[in-house]
């Protein structure tokens, strides 16, 4: 899917030599310290920005601009404040050229799926952050993507809402499994969501480790208390924090 990917902004090389492949209906979690370029990589996969080196292919075709069948959920939600919840969710289908009748038939299902029934006519500013991201998720799901790109989707909501949304997402994924690339900076989240966890590290960052997550699906709250979950969590933690600790205690002379 991604081979030998590199990206630089002017003189700043963000990442280099990243190669990864995500199988059908597989969930790949990408984790790394802030500024490691995980969001940039995801934007490249979506075709929002071009790579400097290497190539990205989705379903065999090289990505140059955003493709049909790929949808993204943004950390900043990206809801349009002048559209209601319904209109925001319908945005993708409207652009895909669906008729009004089709939209009226399909959208309530997605609104229902993310648990926003009854809030169709509210504006984003009237609902909580968690509900806003549910709306963002419904908008991405509504175009029936085969690849779902999640850019720290729960990074901007509070800790409790975040947990609720994680299990909501797992529930939705179990109902309609799609290929998913899930970028996060939370270790628990990466292990909980991913079939594999990719750890990005270094400057420029590279793939430091690829950890297989052999936790059974469907996953739910009980998964968190499995001994295996704690083991994997520790493993990711160890890889990730090595440098962080070293950097923290580094004395500049």
């Amino acid at each position, binding site marked *: 899917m991604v081979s030998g990917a590199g990206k630089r902004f002017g003189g700043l090389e963000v990442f280099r030599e990243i190669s990864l492949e995500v199988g059908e209906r597989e969930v790949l979690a990408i984790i790394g310290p802030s500024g490691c370029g995980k969001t940039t990589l995801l934007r490249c996969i979506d075709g929002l920005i071009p790579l400097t080196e290497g190539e990205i292919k989705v379903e065999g075709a090289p990505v140059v601009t955003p*493709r049909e069948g790929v949808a993204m959920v943004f950390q900043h939600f*990206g809801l349009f404040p002048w559209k209601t919840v319904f209109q925001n969710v319908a945005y993708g289908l409207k652009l895909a050229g669906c008729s009004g009748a089709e939209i009226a038939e399909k959208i309530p299902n997605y609104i229902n799926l993310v648990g926003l029934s009854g809030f169709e006519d509210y504006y984003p500013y009237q609902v909580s952050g968690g509900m806003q991201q549910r709306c963002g998720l419904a908008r991405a799901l509504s175009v029936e993507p085969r690849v779902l790109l999640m850019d720290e989707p729960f990074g901007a909501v509070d800790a409790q809402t975040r947990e609720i949304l994680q299990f909501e997402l797992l529930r939705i994924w179990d109902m309609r499994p799609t290929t998913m690339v899930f970028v996060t900076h939370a270790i628990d989240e990466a292990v909980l969501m991913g079939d594999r966890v990719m750890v990005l590290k270094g400057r420029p960052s590279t793939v430091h480790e690829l950890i297989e997550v052999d936790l059974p699906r469907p996953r739910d709250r009980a998964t968190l208390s499995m001994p295996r979950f704690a083991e994997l969590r520790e493993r990711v933690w160890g890889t990730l924090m090595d440098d962080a600790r070293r950097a923290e205690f580094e004395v500049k002379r």
Partner: protein
Amino acid sequence: MSGGQSILERPAAGFTLGARRLLASPLALKATAGIVLLGAWEGIVRALAPAYVAKPTGIARVFFTVIANEQFLAAAGATLGAVVKGLVIAIMLGTAIGLAMGRITVVERGLRYYVNSLFATPMIAVLPLVTLWFGYNADARLAVIVFAAFFSIAVNTCDGARSVPLEFLEVARSFRARPLSTLLDIVLPSSLPYLIAGMRLAAGRALVAAVVAEFFISIPGLGYYILFNSRTFKHNEAFVAVIALVAVGVSFEAMLNWVTRRYLPWARRD
């Protein structure tokens, strides 16, 4: 806390209580201030000025005769019609040019200095030139109104279109929106608060332009009505036309506020 409350609850002497009530009620305060101002105007005019100078009682006496007067109504209709027509033209052109300037770098680079300079140009200064091009007629008035209103709308819309959050554009691109759809569905609504600010500014300028054009060109309208009546010592009648102009300005403002509240509830939040 308890000390403060006891002070508040202590019954005050009659006069202080009355004054305090007055200060506490904005409506009563406004009304009182209005009566004092009108009283001062009436008093000073009666004491110092000739009989034909406008004063509140004089204006009140002629008010209903004037607003029922055919000539006055025709004048008000002409001015209002020209202002509305001019604003509609200015809004359509200004929005189109403003959006183009805000989103297309070439257009912005090419036009920015000219639009900003013309925005700063007092439209009264071009009035004599406009009359040369259009003649001493209603077209010249319309042209001056459009000239006065257009640039504030274009400049504001341009600012609005430039300040569309990048996140919105990113989402539009991610969902594979075509450029025209992004312009109409994302950039335009996102710029609407700026556009409305521009319209507010434009409405005031358009009204000034209409009145000044009528002064200068002498065509029927409220401006000319004021000029004519002032010159024939009917100051009270002239002042009714001034009140009409104020009413037009205030109602336009009220209308914009209503539209914002009703259709752009999201824009009122910071």
